[in-house]
């Protein structure tokens, strides 16, 4: 009975909906439709009925249609037409506006009964299916005998649907078939058809668990021979039973182990799930996890793999020990070419890595890394380089955590320093830098590697990184010497001039370098590889080709030189800085002979000077910028001994140390937060199932099992109603208006629900009172207004649903119109206040890496630039203010704003619709203490950029207002 009431009380949108069909046909004339329905032609009848259905679905029902269908469709002898008629009945409103059942339904009832006893088995089946969707006991009651009769029909199609019908009816209206469980149990005992058996079994499981268990126990030997669908249902039952009664677990664990061997992937997967939910014993978990791994290896579908990985990740929280054993199996998923899978696998592997298995894991990663080198020719470069980056990062984090693998990692990774494609080399140099800082014992080894690779590095930022490492960590005289020589030969013959005559010397330098660093025999001719391509990664080959043509003369010579010649002054600065550091280091040796020191210093200064000269000469492609020039000059002065050298040697390393520390702290705090989330709060209720089941029945709220919870949350949506909050109430009309209205706004993900309370403040009855709403922005009303009648002083709550499709500030406005009852048909209208839908309701702070931020920043089309206009005098206060009012997260390191007098910060947030919002703050403190600068907002869509901009402007002015 309750469902009957529900059906009438709620609006069309909240009613159950089984069918949605989109059709663009213009609404047709009702008479025309009726004429078609009456016609004898089958085609036009069916067509007209289809139209009627889509009109009903689009909310424009044809009046009197139901009767037409009853008269002309349901008694028709064509099976297909009658079936279509049932679909119409399914969606049509079975209750009148007064909430009572329509009188036509009695006729319908009779028609359905005829269908249920029709000789055509498919007609019966369809009718039974339709019966499942009826919510009225009154309609169902007379049909029960026919439905029961169908359980014995000789055709399995009928039987299987009959069971389904019995099931749904029993669930909804138990009193209609009180003996349904017995009935179905008997049915199940005799049934041979798999589908019917399954349906019957499911019915027993859900309606009368004991009988289901009974059946399961009686057939326990046959389970391995059952069909896939039935096995799955059996597993579900086992889950339910064991949850309700853990003592019986033992009986079923055997079944599950049997089913784990099933040839069907679906069954194996489900068995593993079930096993995990039943037992947390390591053996069980291991068996389940092994199954996952096996599926991971055998299933080719990416979706399955990803979901399997998710399940394994779930296991990690409680059972990481088991996963540690299986990590090698999990790593097999790396075979898949899919990046998402690879990423997830590597993440997972990194999570369960321990001292014991780290060697193996890194070994696999290394192998994969080697594979990427050979794959590069055949596969798409992008994915390979992405994957390579991923691997490098993984090895990086592994060796940070486990120093014992750092050594091997360095030797593997340093080969990639010369990688020219993508950012892999950059990642490697970052890694190398960190290793140098962390592990003193590895330093000399690392330095050797870097020195070895230096001549072949072509990427400017990698060169800079390498130079920094050489400059900062070369401490032993031998290292210093080698580094010094390597750089000098990298820079080549001085002075830096452009031209053919230099080539000879360049080559010589190159030879020297080769002799020192790479004793391998060098060939002057292009090497031809086995597959017939030219090997091109060796520097001198390029040198040869470069020497032949003067057009790419800048590229000739060692990479550092060619970079310098191309006008990369930042590299030049790095060279000078590094030389300066080396010189200072040499100076600091106690036993260094002054002659030697002076010679070194002179050479270094020469390099600096020639760089300066080159930058200002006409050879340079671009003139040197002031900043670089300044830095180089300061190098020279330092070497001259005019300024203190400590800052060069110590501070930079200290700063780097600090960066590493901060990063570590950040990771730790993130890990702690994560751990906190997993922790059970102190005040959490502990649930003793055994104790509870004695005093209450089994079906208490807390006992609702996981499956059902998932189902209810899926069908009804998350029940995160924020509840009734006074702050969310907006007054829509004045107190003295004839109609007072206020709205309570609830924002769900994609819906805004307005509960509008309307009160008639007059002494007249208001008829046809309608709340008419309209929207501005990306909002859509999804219902037509209904009209109500309000007596004097009466109140009513009207609910309106509004759909949102993107993050944007929207405005809802409207009016209330009404007629005053009585002699004069006076009507009135009250204009409502606007309701502003706040963009902040959709924005949540997010985290994104700097590189992603930059790439998004470059990509996004919409930018909104807002000038800073504030009375705030404090930079960090201002940043706090902006993050607070935009609900965004600051990505930039904080803490030195006040010292520096300027602020550059990136903020990031994500909307519930998955849109990214980027904000950059560039603010400077003027000498008078006021702040000036810009806030730039970028996003993919215009809406966010504009709305956020408006928001910031508004908040700024508000903040100023009260002051």
């Amino acid at each position, binding site marked *: 009975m309750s469902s009957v009431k529900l059906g009438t009380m709620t609006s069309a949108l909240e009613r159950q909906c089984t069918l949605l069909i989109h059709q663009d046909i213009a609404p047709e004339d009702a008479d025309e439709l009726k004429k078609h329905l009456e016609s004898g032609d089958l085609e036009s009848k069916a067509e007209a009925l289809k139209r009627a259905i889509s009109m009903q679905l689009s909310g424009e029902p044809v009046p009197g249609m139901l009767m037409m269908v009853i008269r002309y469709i349901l008694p028709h002898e064509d099976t297909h037409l009658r079936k279509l008629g049932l679909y119409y009945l399914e969606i049509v409103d079975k209750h009148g506006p007064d909430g009572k059942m329509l009188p036509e339904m009695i006729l319908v009832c009779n028609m359905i009964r005829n269908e249920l006893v029709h000789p055509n088995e498919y007609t019966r089946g369809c009718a039974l299916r339709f019966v499942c969707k009826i919510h009225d006991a009154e309609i169902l009651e007379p049909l029960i005998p026919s439905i029961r009769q169908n359980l014995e029909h000789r055709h399995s199609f009928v039987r299987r649907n009959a069971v389904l019908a019995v099931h749904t009816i029993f669930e909804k209206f138990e009193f209609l078939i009180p003996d349904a469980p017995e009935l179905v149990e008997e049915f199940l005992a005799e049934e041979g058809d798999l589908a019917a058996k399954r349906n019957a079994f499911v019915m027993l499981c859900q309606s009368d668990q004991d009988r289901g268990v009974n059946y399961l126990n009686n057939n326990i030997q046959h389970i391995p021979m059952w069909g896939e669908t039935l096995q799955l249902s059996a597993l579900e039952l086992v889950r339910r039973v064991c949850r309700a009664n853990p003592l019986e*677990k033992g009986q079923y664990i055997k079944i599950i182990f049997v089913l784990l061997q099933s040839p069907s992937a679906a069954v194996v997967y489900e068995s593993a799930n079930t096993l995990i939910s039943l037992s947390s014993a390591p053996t069980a978990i291991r068996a389940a996890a092994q199954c996952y791994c096996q599926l991971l290896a055998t299933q080719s579908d990416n979706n399955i793999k990803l979901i399997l990985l998710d399940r394994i990740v779930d296991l990690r929280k409680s059972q990481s020990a088991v996963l540690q054993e299986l990590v090698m199996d999990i790593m097999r998923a790396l075979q898949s070419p899919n990046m998402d899978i690879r990423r997830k696998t590597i993440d997972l592997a990194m999570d369960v890595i321990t001292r014991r298995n780290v060697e193996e894991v890194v070994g696999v990663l290394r192998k994969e890394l080697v594979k990427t080198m050979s794959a590069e020719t055949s596969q798409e470069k992008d994915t390979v380089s992405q994957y390579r980056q991923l691997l490098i990062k993984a090895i990086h984090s592994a060796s940070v955590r486990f120093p014992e693998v750092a050594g091997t990692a360095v030797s593997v990774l340093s080969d990639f320093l010369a990688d020219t494609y993508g950012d892999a080399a950059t990642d490697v140099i970052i890694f190398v830098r960190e290793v140098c800082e962390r592990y003193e014992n590895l330093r000399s080894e690392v330095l050797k590697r870097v020195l070895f690779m230096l001549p072949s590095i072509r990427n400017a930022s990698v060169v800079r990184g390498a130079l920094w490492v050489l400059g900062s960590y070369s401490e032993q005289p031998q290292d210093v010497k080698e580094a010094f020589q390597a750089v000098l030969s990298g820079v080549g013959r001085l002075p830096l001039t452009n031209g053919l005559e230099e080539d000879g010397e360049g080559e010589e330098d190159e030879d020297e370098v080769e002799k020192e660093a790479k004793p391998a025999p060098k060939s002057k001719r292009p090497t031809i590889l086995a597959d017939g391509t030219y090997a091109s990664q060796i520097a001198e080959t390029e040198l040869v080709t470069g020497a032949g043509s003067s057009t790419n003369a800048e590229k000739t010579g060692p990479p550092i030189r060619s970079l310098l010649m191309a006008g990369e002054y930042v590299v030049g600065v790095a060279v000078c800085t590094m030389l300066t550091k080396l010189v200072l280091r040499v100076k600091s040796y106690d036993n260094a002979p002054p002659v030697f020191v002076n010679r070194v210093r002179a050479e270094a200064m020469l390099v600096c000077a020639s760089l300066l000269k080159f930058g200002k000469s006409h050879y340079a492609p671009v003139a040197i910028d002031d900043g670089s020039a300044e830095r180089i000059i300061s190098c020279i002065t330092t070497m001259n001994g005019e300024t203190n050298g400590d800052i060069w040697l110590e501070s930079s390393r200290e700063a780097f140390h600090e960066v590493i520390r901060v990063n570590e702290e950040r990771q730790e705090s993130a890990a702690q937060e994560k751990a906190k989330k997993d922790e059970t709060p102190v005040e959490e209720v502990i649930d003793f199932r055994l104790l509870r089941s004695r005093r209450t029945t089994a079906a208490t709220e807390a006992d609702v099992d996981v499956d059902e919870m998932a189902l209810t949350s899926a069908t009804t949506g998350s029940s995160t109603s924020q509840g009734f909050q006074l702050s969310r109430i907006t007054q829509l009309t004045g107190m003295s208006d004839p109609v007072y209205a206020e709205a309570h706004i609830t924002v769900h993900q994609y819906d805004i629900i307005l509960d509008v309370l309307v009160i008639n403040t007059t002494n007249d009855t208001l008829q046809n009172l309608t709340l008419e709403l309209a929207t501005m922005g990306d909002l859509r009303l999804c219902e037509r207004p209904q009209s109500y009648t309000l007596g004097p002083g009466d109140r009513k709550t009207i609910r309106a649903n509004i759909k949102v499709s993107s993050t944007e500030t929207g405005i809802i406005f409207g009016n209330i119109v009404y007629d005053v009852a009585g002699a004069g048909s006076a009507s009135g209208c009250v204009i409502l206040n606007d309701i502003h839908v706040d963009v902040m309701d959709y924005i949540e702070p997010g985290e994104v890496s700097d590189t992603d931020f930059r790439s998004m920043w470059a990509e996004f089309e919409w930018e909104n630039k807002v000038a800073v206009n504030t009375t705030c005098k404090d930079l960090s206060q201002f940043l706090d203010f902006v993050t607070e009012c935009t609900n965004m997260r600051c990505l930039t390191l904080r803490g030195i704003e006040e010292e520096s007098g300027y602020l550059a910060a990136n903020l990031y947030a994500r909307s519930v619709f998955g849109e990214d919002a980027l904000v950059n703050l560039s603010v400077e403190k003027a000498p008078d203490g006021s702040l000036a600068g810009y806030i730039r907002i970028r996003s993919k869509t215009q809406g966010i950029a504009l709305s956020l901009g408006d928001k910031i402007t508004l908040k700024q002015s508000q903040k100023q207002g009260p002051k």
Partner: protein
Amino acid sequence: MVVLSAAVTTKAGKVVLSRQYRELSRIRIEGLLAAFPKLIGTDRQHTYVETDNVRYVYQPVETLYVLLITTKNSNIVEDLETLRLLGKILPEYSPRYGVVDEESVMEAAFEIIYSFDEVIDWGGLRENVDLQQIATFTEMYSHEERLVKMIQESKMAEAKEERKRREEEIRRQRSDGGDRLGMLGNELGKMLQAGGMGSFAQDLGLTGLQNKAAANAAYAAAGGISSDSYAQQQSTMGMGGGGGMGMSGMGSQMGMGMNMRNVISSSSGYGRSNAGPPPVAGTAAKKGMSLGKGKKQDNILDSLRAEGEVVDAPVSRLKGAKANAAAAAAYVPPSQAIHLATIEKLNLTVSRDGGIQNMEVKGDLMLRVTDSAKAGIRLQVSTGGAESNGVQFRTHPNVDRTLFSTQGLIGLKDPKRPFPTGNPLGVLRWRLVTKEEDKAPLLINCWPSDNGDESVVNIEYELGASKELRDVVITIPIGTSSQPTVNQCDGEFVYNSRTQSVEWRLAMIDESNSQGSLEFSTGPTDANAFFPINVSFSSKYTYAPIVVSQVALVSSGEPVEFGHDVSLVPDTFSIV
């Protein structure tokens, strides 16, 4: 493993069609479908998305997506299987061969939905079907329907023949003369009666004097038979051709119809036996298999045991059996061949100051004969002088009224006819309308009084016209949700918080406790809130003391054993 919805959308996100397999509100499903296009990224290589509550699994088909919305713990392997099948359906039903685009799907929307329904059950579980089966199911060609149609047609033709023949005969007889017509009518009636078409026979028997009417009736009978036969066919289908066709004597063509039915029933028997218990061979095979695996499994189980899992718990198998027995006990079939029931229903409204507003008693004597051999009977009934008390008796139209009024016998007008068997038949009906207060079975006096902070209610009853009342429940609404307190009570006092009422229960009221009272107090309430008071009871003493002294066979006068139940229950008994 639950599919909530199967849908087809365009790549741009427009929903072309969607079919739900669980109860979902429109706003919810539209919300879910609207969210979908925003969730799918462009450069993903997998085809599922998860949100907080649901998982979307989709598959691109040309310019469209086929989409399943499932619960998050749904079995992905299964769902992908389902999805693949759904994807194959689209081109199958496209009006332009194999072309799948928005337009063609829209045109074939219903056909596609029909097929979707075959793949997924209501409730969201997958059916194990392939395209071939789906095609069979949606085509809906039924062999049985054709057979039934053929039978029907042949019978129609036959009835037409018969009609023609009769018309011919009547025409001939009319020319012979009028007095034989009545006999013909009677004869026709008997013939049909023998065939079980009782009501028609009766009509014919009564109206058989007019020849025109007779002809019409015969026609109607023929028509009626052909339309009824369909239902009869149905009822006999499962049982394998029982009797009751009642037309076997009518023509040779009928024989064919019967034969056909036999064919059907035998084939149905075959179908059933096919679907019998699983083959025995399976168990033997299993034994061989389990030898090898048992050991490994035992190892696992042993280690589980070692880890503290309960592995060998006994499982009670008795629960189901017990429930069975209980269900069986609930239904007791009537043991006697002839069962009589006197049922009186009372409608009584008493105003709270005493006087009867309206009192009506309706009684029925129901006769139920289960043995057709004992259907030709007469009942010896005494009304116990109830007529003098204002009770009016009426008999069933088929019951001989004069026999009843003169001898107190209830029998059919036609002594040769038996009573219908199976269903209870009301043979005698009576009614009593009165305003006399002393006729009420129970007098109830209710005195609510309000003393400011609480209301005290005094109720007393007094046994009225009835001798004994059982299971008396007097329900007094109290209009507040506060728990009432009982000050004094004869009998049992129950507070029902759901209906906010007090139930005063008395297992039995008779001479020994012909008066009683109840006093309780509750929160301050308006006196009107305690009305209407409703009373329910049951009693064995009816207003019309009908006694059936004997039931005897008409043919031999031999007495037959019978059972008789008497009950008086109120339909409505309220004090307003």
